[in-house]
């Protein structure tokens, strides 16, 4: 009986369907939430929509801003509050309709409508005007030198198609709404949606009328996207040749993947920093010396070597190197020094240590729970008895954000590549408009004023000086214990020539076959 089974399975295996070389079978841990380009501000959703829709300008595979649907842009000489965009001509949507300035006005207004998750990025905009069919002016409340940084994920939709299908505003995912655009698309991008089954499979095919046909390699003809949650299964799928590229290779499997014939690992620094936050108002961590002791009790090199298997860049500041304001000096992390840490603890009056709970996600960052576990051991050495409470992200974030946790882990990506984004969420006093991710209780009126001033400072040198000042205040207060910047690892077939994008978003028109 067993023989018979083996024979049957062998026969089935022998007749594996071959897929043409230009098809890319792509897998990552999660699926896009919706295909509506303005309804969600979230990695996998943008990752999928970047194949189908275009924005005015985009980040290339190295993270630099390059033209997309806009060919050039500049602030008007006579009015720094107005940015002028010259649009690309001869661009058409997947349904054949032409792209023009009306669509830009429509799309940006749509992205600012209720139900959009993109609207915070556009909050400085006062008015959007079509100057002619291929020129658009965007006027901001006060000068906004960094407006273009906020437009890289702002996708353009056809006004007529949206009117015809009644998708004039994004559906509010939070309220459980859906609309035609949730499952249907009409973009100008390199790929068109063929079929989609949520959490199961999404099929795309190349757009024959793509405007970038002669600009980018465009060697991929079809994309089959499958989300695979279980890390072991995802790696198995790559190892067995069932998928061509996976975005999140667990660090322990990098050796196995790169050591397998026909497979490669591509690596690049990610624009995301991992750190611990501490309560500065109540409990032992309200003592600065305790926070400093904890900071030097963390053995960042050991975390890098063992937990991250060399796949991380330890840091002394909660800012990735991509961000404007980053300096080598800030990045320098302190030496691991148990004796000095114990001394600080004694000075603070905690020679015998204290008890504390560490809240940690277990499905959000690379080896998040492993890092927290290592921290538990390191804190134990200076007498701090840490209880680790690791949970899925959906249950972790409310606690981390709500100020209930005296000691918690957080990661922060910086889509605008500017320090202001970090300050506004993590450093500013927690109010209902700002500081929403600063539950540490850190509050400094001078710093708050400087953060707000960054938004309208047009003198870039003066602006950078203010940024440096704020950073030095943050470093002195030590309400955050930086750990490292994450490193991205994409595993792929070795006939694929593809750079890892620092925002973890592949743009498949850039992919080349060797």
């Amino acid at each position: 009986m067993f023989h018979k089974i083996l024979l049957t399975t062998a026969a089935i295996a022998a007749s594996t369907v071959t897929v043409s070389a230009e098809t890319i079978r792509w897998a990552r841990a999660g699926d896009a939430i919706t295909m509506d380009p303005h309804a969600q501000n979230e990695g996998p959703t943008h990752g999928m929509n970047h194949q189908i829709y275009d924005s005015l300008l985009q980040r290339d595979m190295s993270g630099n801003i390059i033209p997309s649907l806009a060919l050039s842009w500049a602030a008007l000489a006579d009015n720094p509050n107005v940015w002028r965009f010259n649009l690309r001509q001869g661009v058409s949507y997947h349904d054949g309709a032409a792209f023009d300035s009306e669509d830009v006005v429509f799309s940006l207004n749509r992205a600012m409508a209720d139900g959009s998750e993109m609207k915070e990025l556009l909050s400085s905009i006062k008015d959007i005007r079509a100057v002619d069919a291929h020129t658009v002016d965007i006027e901001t409340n006060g000068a906004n030198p960094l407006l273009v940084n906020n437009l890289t994920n702002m996708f353009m939709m056809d006004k007529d198609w949206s009117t015809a299908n009644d998708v004039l505003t994004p559906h509010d995912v939070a309220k459980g709404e859906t609309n035609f655009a949730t499952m249907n698309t009409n973009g100008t991008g390199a790929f068109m949606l063929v079929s989609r089954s949520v959490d199961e499979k999404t099929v795309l095919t190349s757009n024959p009328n793509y405007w970038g046909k002669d600009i980018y390699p465009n060697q991929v003809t079809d994309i089959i996207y499958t989300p695979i949650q279980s890390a072991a299964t995802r790696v198995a799928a790559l190892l067995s040749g069932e998928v061509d590229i996976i975005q999140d290779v667990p660090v322990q499997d990098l050796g196995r993947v790169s050591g397998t014939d026909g497979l490669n690992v591509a690596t690049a620094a990610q624009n995301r920093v991992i750190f611990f936050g501490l309560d500065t108002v109540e409990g032992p961590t309200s003592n600065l010396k305790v926070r400093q002791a904890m900071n030097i009790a963390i053995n960042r090199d050991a975390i890098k070597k063992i937990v991250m298997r060399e796949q991380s860049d330890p840091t002394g500041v909660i800012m990735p190197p991509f961000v404007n304001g980053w300096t080598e000096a800030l990045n320098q992390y302190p030496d691991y020094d148990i004796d000095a840490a114990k001394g600080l603890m004694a000075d603070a009056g905690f020679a015998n240590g204290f008890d504390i709970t560490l809240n940690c996600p277990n499905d959000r960052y690379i080896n998040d729970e492993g890092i927290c576990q290592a921290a538990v051991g390191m804190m134990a050495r200076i007498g701090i008895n840490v209880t680790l409470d690791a949970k899925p992200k959906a249950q972790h974030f409310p606690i981390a954000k709500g100020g209930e946790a005296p000691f918690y882990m957080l990661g922060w990506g910086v889509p605008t590549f500017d320090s202001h984004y970090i300050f506004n969420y993590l450093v500013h006093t927690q109010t209902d408009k700002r500081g929403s991710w600063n539950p540490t209780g850190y509050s400094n009126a001078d710093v708050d004023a400087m953060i707000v001033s960054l938004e309208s400072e047009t003198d870039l040198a003066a602006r950078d000086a203010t940024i440096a000042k704020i950073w030095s205040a943050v470093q002195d207060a030590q309400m955050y214990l930086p750990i490292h910047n994450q490193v991205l690892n994409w595993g792929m077939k070795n006939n694929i020539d593809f750079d890892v994008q620092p925002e973890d978003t592949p743009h498949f028109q850039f992919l080349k076959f060797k």
Partner: protein
Amino acid sequence: MRRFLESDFLYDFLRAPVAIVSFCVVSILVLSAIFAQFIAPTNPFDPASLELMNGFTPPLEPNMYTGEVFLLGTDDQGRDLFSAILYGLRISLFVGLMAVSLAMTMGVILGLIAGYVGGWLDNLIMRLADIQMTFPSILIAMLIFGVARGLLPPELRYEMAITVLIISIGLSEWVPFARTVRGSTMVEKEKEYIAAAQLIGLKKWQIMIRHILPNVLGPVLVIATITFALAIIAEATLSFLGVGAPRTEPSLGTLIRVGQDFLFSGEWWILLFPALTLLALALAVNLLGDWLRDTLNPRLK
């Protein structure tokens, strides 16, 4: 009478090599779990004793940074696996034992009442059993865990992890006990000696405990053995689903869950040794249960 049964039992046991081997395996595992702190070279639950640089040391090879050697190697946090397995075994055995005790106590009491008293009580208990069966064990456990997590303060939540495991596994396994006991009770209560006992004026609970209970203990023991193995496996499954013992104080199941992450990467020992220990334990308990059933069921002889 009792003596005779015992010697008969012993006689059967000594003639069953599988039973002897299983019994030895279980005994060794149980003893080494009980005396873990004397056997284990380190205390894996003491975070201050962990040296992260010892992580991923293969069995019997010196660590490349610290030069330390470990019998079964170390896990991803530099924890000595041999010690971790002994301590983890202790948690798993404890969870299994307590869960079975809970399930057995509940099941036997409810089964006796349902079978002997009958009427609406019987109906109520059996409908309860239906509802219970509606939610299979892992769902029950996830539910209870979810509620406990939501309601308890964080510090308590952590301490309660093991208790919650015990309650959730125990609660989900009482039904087989209750059904078996109820069935046997219904058969027993029709017998003449019960009628006689009723005539003498013995109280209901006295009859249940003194006369019916001893007669239904055989099948209960068999179910208990099998449920024990089931509980240990359930603990492992639950930790896979993220609701098991915490990683800082790992049970056998948690060790396996962590170990499977390293299946493809070549650190085979992190999965293999805990998995083998669990397999040996569960297999031996199951084989013992088998033998018990055959021995206690005279009709199959």
